[in-house]
């Protein structure tokens, strides 16, 4: 195919998926395999007093693993290494793993688990970020704080005096469950002689590798991690798999048999990571002609019982907190705090959806105070090329937020609808309850790749190898989790080489085979790793040219012949590419200042809502998602990412409410944790613009997380437009809408 980049090339592994032939972890079975299960703490905090093995269970047939059986170090190697694989004497959250059991009979394992009683001598626990901040109980470290950041630009303190208006607001977001339709699972084979091999559903094989090296105290080459077809991740399988993989491996190590652990939905929802709940406080100084003079932002996230990735989530949330605007004075205090709930973790957006929700809701409030429309107020403050962000990063690309806003408002018929709705909302119908309508929007940006020097630190590597049959294999640790990795890499490689799409093979991510191209997170796979794919295959091509086997204007079959030739005569034909940072990226980790991201995607999302006065339900009726993304590598896949992310964000806003009791999620069933069905989703209309990013393959920027950021504030802005009421919390459930509505009605009626 000529120039596959930019075309909707069909999904590389599509055929396997639509015929049921794709193999997910639970589809695999090994001879003599045991089924494993995790026995968990029933209470949120306290000392493990007793473990009772009861019932009529043949316990001598079981493999039982506790913390004492850990060959190496009993912690999940990540950032602070504070999370044990198995609790040793003390638990810090409900569902915390205490012991592991395995048996050949899958049904008996569940029965056995039910008959193990863990007795906890309870200690006072902390369940919300407010309680944690209040420090009435210290449950982690010296002060419950995992991490803090301070961003300080200009001089915020002096700016208050110059303000015509000062506007304050407080905004909150709740936990959200990733709810990949395939639950977490792993199969391990492990013994001291050969080492450890784990197959599993995961996003980051090398994270699991790093963790198991420490757990077993084995050298790198004795741990092998293989990603199986993965049924969704969204961040929920970024760091969590290290835990389940280690558990399966510990059981395999002790029993001498392969062990499979598959969570059922109730366990996965209750025990694994969720999006960090957040609280953001804004204080904004603005001039009477609507110019932002100062922003003081206080951002707190609830990290749960152990540190895991909270510092990085906090980082991204902090950096995105001030939005796509220019403001000369910005101060952001942020912190991640500990509570006694299962640790929160990565979920698409990774802190940004939380802080952007607050920012974009707040902007509508500030607009009202200065008597400007939400649109006009933003126009007066959008950042432009040459201006600096909150971290004092100079924007070096052509940014046209005004143009994007124009187009998004036109595509959504915003002005006409706003007028029409205002009239219709005040008219009386012949039924006692009206359906009111509203329309609102959010403007935002999302940085792609790891923050600051993160990508340099990762030192990602991709290899390409040509086979004797003239196929080109791409070896990378980047995983296909539905987002299109396999297809995008194949497009990039086939374009760079001038060969057919089918010539490219993506090798299954297996740490025994592929180099570490970094984790499949942070909207980096196409932009950062895709670029390495391009470089690696280009190096392969150069080798062939250098060997005199390939000349200008070669054909696809000529290329294959050259590979055959080379391999026959000289042996393996392999090339690698290692990450090189773009020039002029400077980041100061201490001051939290400088070039936070190499590239930003820019977006405007518009939500049209209806509000039913009878049931107090808000519903999204139409959604426009417009974004500038550098280059659209595959239109169908790209639109699919946006549509899927918007749907998850609609869930985040109006449907997905985690119900907590004593630090445990009690609505841990799909019946009671509600995501949108096909009849709940509005038309999601996706549009792209392209301002090529020089360092992305074909000019592409990352887009995986972007669609998670804009829906929540756009929807609540629309609800405010429809009802006149400002809400500051998501998820926004009908029960809360009812309470406010009835409260306001009784005030009006006196």
């Amino acid at each position: 195919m000529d120039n596959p980049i930019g075309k909707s090339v069909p999904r590389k592994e599509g055929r396997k998926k639509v015929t049921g032939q794709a193999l997910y972890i639970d589809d695999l079975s090994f001879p003599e395999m045991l089924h494993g299960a995790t026995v968990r703490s029933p209470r949120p905090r306290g000392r493990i007093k007793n473990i009772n093995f009861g019932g009529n269970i043949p316990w001598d047939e079981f493999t039982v693993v506790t913390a004492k059986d850990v060959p190496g170090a009993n912690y999940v190697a990540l950032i602070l290494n504070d999370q044990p694989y198995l609790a040793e004497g003390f638990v810090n959250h409900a569902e915390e793993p205490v012991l592991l059991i395995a048996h050949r009979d899958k049904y008996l394992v569940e029965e056995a688990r039910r008959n193990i009683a863990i007795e906890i001598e309870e200690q006072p626990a902390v369940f919300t970020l407010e309680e944690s901040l209040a420090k009435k109980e210290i449950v982690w470290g010296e002060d419950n704080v995992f991490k803090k950041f301070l961003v300080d630009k200009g001089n915020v303190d002096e700016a208050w005096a110059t303000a015509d208006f000062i506007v304050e607001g407080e905004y909150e977001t709740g936990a959200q469950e990733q709810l990949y339709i395939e639950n977490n699972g792993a199969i391990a084979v492990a013994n001291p002689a050969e080492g450890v091999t784990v197959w599993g559903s995961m996003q980051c094989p090398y994270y699991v590798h790093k963790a198991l090296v420490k757990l077993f105290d084995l050298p790198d080459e004795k741990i092998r991690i293989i990603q199986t077809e993965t049924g969704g991740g969204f961040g929920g399988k970024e760091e969590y798999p290290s835990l389940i993989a280690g558990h399966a491996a510990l059981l395999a190590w002790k029993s001498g048999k392969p062990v499979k652990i598959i969570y059922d939905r109730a366990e996965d929802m209750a025990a694994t990571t969720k999006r960090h709940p957040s609280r953001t406080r804004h204080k904004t100084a603005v001039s009477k002609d609507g110019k932002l003079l100062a922003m003081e932002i206080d951002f707190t996230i609830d990290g749960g019982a152990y540190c895991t990735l909270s510092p990085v989530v906090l980082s991204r949330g902090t950096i995105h907190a001030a939005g796509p605007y220019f403001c000369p004075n910005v101060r952001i205090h942020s912190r991640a705090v500990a509570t006694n709930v299962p640790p929160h973790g990565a979920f698409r957006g990774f802190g940004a959806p939380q802080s952007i929700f607050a920012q974009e809701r707040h902007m509508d409030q500030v607009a009202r105070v200065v008597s400007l429309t939400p649109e006009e107020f933003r126009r007066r403050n959008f950042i432009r090329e040459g201006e600096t962000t909150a971290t004092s990063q100079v924007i070096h690309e052509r940014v046209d937020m005004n143009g994007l806003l124009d187009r998004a408002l036109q595509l959504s018929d915003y002005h006409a609808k706003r007028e029409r709705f205002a009239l219709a909302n005040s008219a009386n119908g012949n039924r006692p309850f009206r359906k009111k309508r509203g329309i609102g929007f959010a403007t935002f940006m999302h940085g792609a790749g790891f923050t600051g020097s993160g990508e340099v630190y990762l030192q990602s590597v991709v290899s390409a190898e040509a086979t004797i049959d003239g196929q080109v294999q791409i070896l990378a640790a980047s995983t296909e989790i539905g987002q299109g990795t396999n297809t995008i890499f194949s497009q990039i490689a086939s374009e760079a080489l001038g060969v057919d799409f089918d010539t490219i093979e993506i090798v299954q991510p297996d740490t025994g085979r592929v180099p570490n191209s970094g984790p499949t997170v942070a909207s980096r796979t196409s932009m950062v790793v895709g670029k390495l794919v391009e470089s690696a295959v280009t190096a392969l091509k150069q080798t062939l040219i250098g060997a005199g086997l390939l000349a200008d204007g070669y054909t696809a079959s000529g290329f294959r012949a050259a590979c055959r030739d080379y391999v026959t005569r000289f042996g393996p034909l392999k090339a690698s590419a290692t990450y090189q940072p773009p020039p002029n990226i400077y980041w100061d980790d201490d001051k939290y200042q400088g070039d936070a991201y190499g590239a930003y995607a820019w977006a405007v999302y518009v939500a049209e809502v209806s509000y039913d006065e009878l049931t107090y339900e808000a519903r999204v009726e139409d959604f426009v998602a417009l974004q500038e993304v550098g280059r659209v590598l595959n239109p169908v896949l790209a639109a699919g990412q946006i549509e899927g992310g918007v749907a998850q964000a609609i869930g985040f806003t109006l449907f997905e409410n985690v119900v907590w009791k004593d630090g445990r999620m009690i609505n841990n069933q799909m019946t009671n944790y509600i995501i949108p069905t096909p009849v709940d989703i509005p038309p999601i209309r996706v549009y792209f613009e392209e301002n090529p990013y020089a360092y992305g393959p074909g000019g592409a920027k990352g887009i995986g997380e972007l669609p998670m950021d804009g829906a929540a504030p756009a929807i609540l802005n629309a609800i405010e437009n429809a009802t006149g009421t400002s809400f500051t919390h998501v998820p926004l459930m009908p029960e809360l809408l009812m309470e406010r509505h009835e409260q306001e009605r009784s005030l009006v009626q006196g």
Partner: protein
Amino acid sequence: MRAYIPSYQLTTPTSLADVLSLLANEPGIWKPFAGGTDLMVLLEAGRLDHRNYVNIWQLAELRGIEVNNDHVTLGALTTYTDVQTHPVLRTEFPMLCQAAGETGGLAVQNRGTLGGNIVNASPAADSPPALLAYDAEVELVSTQGSRWLPYQGFHTGYKQMLIRPDELLTRIRLPRNTTGATHYYRKVGTRKAQAISKVCFAGVARTNSGHVGDVRIAVGSVAPIVVRCVQTENALKDQSPDAATVKSAQATLRREISPIDDIRSTANYRLQVALNLLADFVATLKS
């Protein structure tokens, strides 16, 4: 999946007579198992305490919908899909069809049965409010004979019903008296499909010269059983459907229902929405 499968029995007698004999010989030991859409959910959650089930899915005697001049009679194994596709039900009992269409997705509707729904006795079930408003009757059969009971009053408390351990619910009968009536059914759930209801309202009424005539109202998810709101009906009967009537009917409804806070919603929300649904229902009677 939390159940210890080997500990469950599911026996499949070939005839209705054999099923009834089993229920008679070992009363309380065996419970009937129909489409499984409720029982299997409990099983998988590790909460299906009863162990011995008698399969009735294969009994042709319990299927089919019969129509005569006075009644429509549905076999207990009538599925939600069967309900939605029957022409007489669509015309004369639209609330039952609407309820069936809002129970789970199509895969659940193909297996869930009316009989199963009734004896599962969830106060949040979708069809019972419609059945109550349509004055349904249920037939209970045992080796000792058969009897018809009004569905109103069948449920006596949370998961308590007027059915003996040796009895099987075999048919449901609806009187064909809905011509010219206004039917109003609204299920308010957690989302638009596949949702457990927070409030479920079924109302059917006729008007005589601008006044409310015969009226029947049933509300689900606001009490331990689905409630046939007889006092509220009385507050509406013979009244003009105006604001004053709505106010007085709402005050009565407040006393007839007792919603609670639970994992899905709050007592306040359920109460307020139920009152709103009543007002909206009465408004439809104005025209």
